[in-house]
């Protein structure tokens, strides 16, 4: 379970209020989608969730463990796929996986088995000897996904994971998300792709300009919007409404 309660964050340097009083609760066994236009505050929210940034106010907890008080314990309980796969270009993929597994304290047999499974699924198994710098964008993304699961976490947090994936990999990733949710684990991901959100999410939130405009199921969103139109339409209406109200 992931819980953000009344979380706000302004960047000190730019003074931008990136997240404003946000509440997010992701329950066990749920796939939760996080939608919003560019610069809405999705990545910032995820960084608050993963302890990369410290909120100005509000609390973050993972499986009931408070991030501010027991950061290390909380961080052991999730796997995180960042929005920037350009990391550690000089390391070999196998070295990177070992590094992550060592940090989480995964033993040799478990890491071997999990890497085998996910690297085969995403078809990067026979290039794990290569340096990450020689990977394509999508291959890096798949490596990040593999690394994020090497300790088999109960919570999975992904920042725009579909970007750069080919159709088969994208399909496999979605299957994996469903499988984990079915096993009672939480999956939280941000995306711009409405069709994915529509078909995959149990619940979703829409964020714009740092404020969460809606949280609930797709059916609830349709009731609220008063129409049976696509998520895309509802999303645009919701985001535009607020824009007009402000203007």
């Amino acid at each position, binding site marked *: 379970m992931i819980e953000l309660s009344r979380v706000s964050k302004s960047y000190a340097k730019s003074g931008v209020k990136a997240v404003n009083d946000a509440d997010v609760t992701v329950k066990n066994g749920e796939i939760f989608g996080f939608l919003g236009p560019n610069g809405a505050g999705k990545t910032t929210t995820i960084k608050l969730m993963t*302890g990369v940034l410290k909120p100005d106010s509000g609390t973050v907890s993972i499986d009931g463990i408070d991030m501010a008080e027991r950061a290390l314990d909380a961080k052991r309980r999730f796997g995180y796929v*960042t929005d*920037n796969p350009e990391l550690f270009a000089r390391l070999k993929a*196998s070295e990177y996986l070992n590094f992550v597994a*060592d940090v989480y304290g995964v033993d040799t047999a478990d890491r071997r088995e999990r890497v085998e499974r996910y690297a085969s699924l995403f078809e990067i198994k026979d290039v794990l000897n290569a340096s990450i710098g*020689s990977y394509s964008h999508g291959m890096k993304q798949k490596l990040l996904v593999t690394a994020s699961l090497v300790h088999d976490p109960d919570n999975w947090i992904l920042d725009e994971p579909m970007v750069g994936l080919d159709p088969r990999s994208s399909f496999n990733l979605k299957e994996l998300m469903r499988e984990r949710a079915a096993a009672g684990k939480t999956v939280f991901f941000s995306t711009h792709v409405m069709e994915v959100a529509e078909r995959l999410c149990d619940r979703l939130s829409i964020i714009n300009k740092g404020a969460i405009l809606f949280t609930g199921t797709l059916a609830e969103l349709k009731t609220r919007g008063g129409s049976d139109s696509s998520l895309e339409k509802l999303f645009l209406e919701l985001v535009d409404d607020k824009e007009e109200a402000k203007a």
Partner: protein
Amino acid sequence: MKVYFSLAALYIRSFYNLPGKRAPGAKLDGKKIGKLVGMTVLVLFLLANLGVMFVGLNLGLYESLASVGMQGMLLLNAVVMATVMTLIIGFLTSLSTYYLNDMELQLLAMPIKPRALFAAKFTAVYVSEAIFSLFFILSAMVIFGIKEQPHPLMYLWGTLAAFLVPIPALAACYFVQVPLLSVARFLKNRQTILLVGGVLGLAMGLGFNLYYQTMFSRLATDPAWIAQNMAGPESLVAQAGRAWPPAYLAWKAMSQPASAQAALSLLGMAAFCLSFLAAAVLVLSGAYAKSLVGFNEVRLRRLGARTGEYLDRNLRRGHAFGTLVLREVRMMNREPMYLLNGPFIIVLMPVIFGIMLAAQKDAFLSDPDMAGLLALLQSGGGAVIAGLAGAFLGSGTSITCTAVSRDAKALPYIKSLPIKAGRYFLAKLAHGLIFGVFGAVAGVGLLTWALGLGASDAAAGLAMALGLSALVNMAGLWLDTANPRLKWDNPMAALKQNPNSVIMILGTMGLIGGAGYLAFSQGLSSWQAAAWFGLVPGVAFAALLAAFPAYAERRLAAMEV
């Protein structure tokens, strides 16, 4: 033309890391002003350092030339030296910036004429060359001006000449590099290029040092020798100067500044130099743009049937702290720019000095002038010298003082992992100390061998080297934690354009110079020196180390990446 100007501005800004235009409304606050002032002071300090060296060199030459009445040769010498130095520095700069990064491939995809692209690159490299050349020729002119009171027009001709001197030099560099990189595929790799460039650069730096040392060692005893061999009419420099038209013409203009001849000479020089530029742009532009393609290629070898075996062998549990240190080492050593400016120095410097010493050791120690020095070495001075050399090498890797900046891109991810902040930073310190100890041992070992020191002197020297270098490495990490450079788009910027590394290099020189001065002026015995410069810094290191993790944790939490 407009495209050329904006491209040149873009290149210059990214080469020299100049700030872009300030956003309207953004105010200069106290911290920014402080940074600006700090950087200005730093730049002035570096320029002053260079100035002192150049002035010293030219003053030495002037005096030896004046002793035989040939002071006029000083200006020719300056122009030739500026030409040679801009050729060398230009070669290294143009090589290391030949292909900057993938941004250039995007430029290739835009409707930009290759001519504009090449000319813009040329301009950006030229800027630093011109400054360097001006600096050098100016220092010769000022000395000549004060001593000989020539017509003030000399300064004008000299300044103009200084701007022209680097042009053919740089054009020549590209005339070599463009064909070379168009043909030799194996060179089309930033890593190879940087390695080649780095080794060449170090070798050239050493050569220059040798030149400088030779001159100053003879200055007191034999100025006529210098005049004869290094700058006189029959010297190699003078012959080269007469054979190379721009140098000869510049010298002509500066020697008879008030004559009509002077203006004509300079005009001739300008025509000569600019024709090189025109030729380079006309001939090379197309080939240059073409040669940029393929720089970012990498090889990807598939494991195939060996996959299982590979994973069995390589996916193994490692030590929790060791894995952090290993990551630091790999991330640094596999980035050629980092390797060359960091760990590589402590391997290469001792090797080169070792070879030089091995060749000259006997002559060096049996020189009668060295008797006084030998006596000094026997009374504890040897331990101090060895200790300081070790401290210098052990502190010279720039590992810790750029450790946080280099890792800027990975910080968001690292912060999401269950790693204690203190351990993460201690891994960085450990990385620095591993190479620090290596440098200290290499430095002390080399001098112990060269000076024939006994075991107790060597041990005292090692204590100093370890204490001082540990302290410097700790201080460097503290500095980069307090004020890291987190925003960059080229890894080079995290090290080379990081004020922290400059501050630490200067600070180390100050510390070592100060320690040496104190040790010799107080006539410390080797054990006293070991206590003062080994034990005391060691205690300071321990004190800093104890306070560091808590501080680092607070700083890391505050870094908004």
